[in-house]
């Protein structure tokens, strides 16, 4: 009965358009009152849920990303990617995808990737005779790569939602190969579609020019090295590394690129406040919600239900994947991670799946959900940048969805893709 109150209130509020954070908090409050517990517990949980040092990495990484984006880093990354792969078949499509790999090392946000790189690439692609649908397809689906390449704050959200014991360093490392694999499969899709439509390629600029482009982008790209070495070596905590990243981003954009002025800085700070407050409020309220899930033994019940369904981990993983894809089409990524991790992670581990591996599956899976209707924030950003209807884009997006889904299946069923790289560093 308590479960009905919890999920019933949650679902009702969600359906009438209440912000997700408050759906979680209010349904927890209603359940606590129904169970005759003191309501103050809920607010205590919310407050302690956001008073965690490890959470600080999320605002810092988002802040660093905002500073880099407003400091015009995307243009330099696109230029570098252009020099590297512009001469391949489907030229600017390949450039778009490669730029997402580089951008992923700066910012972990798919929406930021779609608007920053899409804003530069889509007009350029239109001009060179590429179809707008193709330009938007490539931009939208390739922005999932940014979620996989470190620093990915969604991996941190997963680590915290999983109880804070899953190593962020391992999660960051585990995302790299799957992220690159996704890039390769999307490049193949972009190549095939471009070949059929006869899209042009760009001339190779020569190694001298390429060196110049690289030099231009290096200060930004060093960021990924700083973060990675900092977190991986264990010298700094993830929160400290991310703070260094934010300070470094500020220094680079002020002194090296000279693109940061006061109004850009204020805009970046406000954007970071808006995004982080929204995400962390969800995490705080989910702490109260998750505490009730544990009290009401939802995870253990879920394991029993799944075991009754099948005892084959392959089937269970497929089931969880399909469920997450379904939920992901309706809801945004970060709330889904905080809500579903406490429920599905125990199931996955009960079937012998490594928590780090499961994190990679989840982030990739929900990343695909960001590009699907009816609720797909990244898809909408891409369509808005390309000034094209969602329906028109969906007609030709299938090769790219296909590539992303194929990668998801490979990542799900070949654990080594996620776990091999972290095992070398350990």
């Amino acid at each position, binding site marked *: 009965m308590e479960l009905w109150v919890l999920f019933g209130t949650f679902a009702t509020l969600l359906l009438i358009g209440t912000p997700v954070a408050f759906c979680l908090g*209010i349904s927890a409050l209603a359940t606590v009152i129904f169970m005759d517990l003191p309501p103050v517990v809920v*607010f205590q949980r919310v407050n302690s849920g956001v008073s*965690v040092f490890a959470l600080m990495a999320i605002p810092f990484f988002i802040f660093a990303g905002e500073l880099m984006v407003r400091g015009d880093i995307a243009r330099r990354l696109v230029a570098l990617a252009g020099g590297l792969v512009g001469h391949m078949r489907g030229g600017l499509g390949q450039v778009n995808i490669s730029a997402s790999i580089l951008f992923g090392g700066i910012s972990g946000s798919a929406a930021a990737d779609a608007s920053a790189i899409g804003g530069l690439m889509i007009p350029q692609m239109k001009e060179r005779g590429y179809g707008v649908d193709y330009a938007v397809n490539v931009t939208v689906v390739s922005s999932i790569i940014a979620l996989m390449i470190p620093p990915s704050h969604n991996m941190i959200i997963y680590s915290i939602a999983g109880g804070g014991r899953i190593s962020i360093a391992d999660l960051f490392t585990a995302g790299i190969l799957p992220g690159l694999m996704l890039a390769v499969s999307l490049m193949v899709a972009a190549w095939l579609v471009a070949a059929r439509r006869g899209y042009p390629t760009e001339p190779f600029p020569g190694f001298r020019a390429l060196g110049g482009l690289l030099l231009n982008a290096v200060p930004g790209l060093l960021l990924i090295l700083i973060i990675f070495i900092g977190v991986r070596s264990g010298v700094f905590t993830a929160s400290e590394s991310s*703070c260094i990243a934010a300070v470094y981003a500020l220094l680079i954009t002020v002194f090296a690129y000279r693109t940061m002025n006061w109004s850009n800085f204020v805009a970046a700070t406000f954007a970071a*406040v808006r995004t982080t407050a929204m995400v962390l409020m969800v995490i705080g309220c989910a702490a109260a919600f998750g505490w009730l899930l544990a009290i009401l033994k939802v995870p253990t019940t879920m394991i029993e239900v799944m075991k009754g369904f099948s005892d084959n981990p392959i089937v269970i993983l497929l089931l969880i994947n399909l469920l997450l894809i379904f939920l992901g089409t309706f809801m945004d990524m970060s709330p889904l991670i905080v809500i579903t991790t406490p429920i599905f992670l125990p199931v996955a581990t009960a079937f012998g799946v490594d928590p780090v591996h499961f994190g990679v599956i989840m982030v990739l899976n929900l990343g695909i959900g960001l590009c699907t209707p009816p609720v797909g924030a990244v898809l909408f950003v891409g369509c808005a940048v390309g000034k094209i209807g969602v329906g028109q884009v969906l007609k030709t997006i299938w090769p790219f969805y296909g590539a992303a889904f194929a990668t998801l299946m490979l990542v799900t069923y070949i654990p080594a893709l996620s776990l091999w790289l972290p095992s070398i560093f350990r």
Partner: protein
Amino acid sequence: MQDGLERVARIMGQLATAALWVAGAALALMTAVIAAQVVFRYGLNSSLIWSEPFAIILMGWFIFLGAAVGIREGYHLSFDILIYILPRRAKLWLFSISDMAVTGFGMGMVWFGSQLAGSAWNIKLPSLGITGAIDFAPIVGGGVLIVLFSLERLARRAAGLPTSRFGDTAEAV
């Protein structure tokens, strides 16, 4: 009624802007504090004992203030499929029910947050040397603004004025 609400909107707008500046300053200060912690620990080999608890309090401020401004500006993540297919009048009613629920939760943040602050009043935080009640100040402050901004939404809707929709400007993260 509408003139009065426009005046209210100006004041609330200024309040939201002020809250955003405080939240932004808290984020910038938090960055400086943790950067200082890193410099002291690895550069000067002496740890700051107050940096982490202080930064966590700053984080509390920008989360709860930012979440409150999100109520007014409509940048919270939400789900609006059902809402799309309903007739306008029904939609507005449901939005109002939602705003009332959020108001209630905001009141809870103020009331129970104050209760928690009261019970921590006599506990002195060892690292900062001040009362433990400070840990609960952000949830109370944010709660006050959430109540104010939600009530403004309800009043504006009752008067037939527009309110920002959740999800309009939501960024996926």
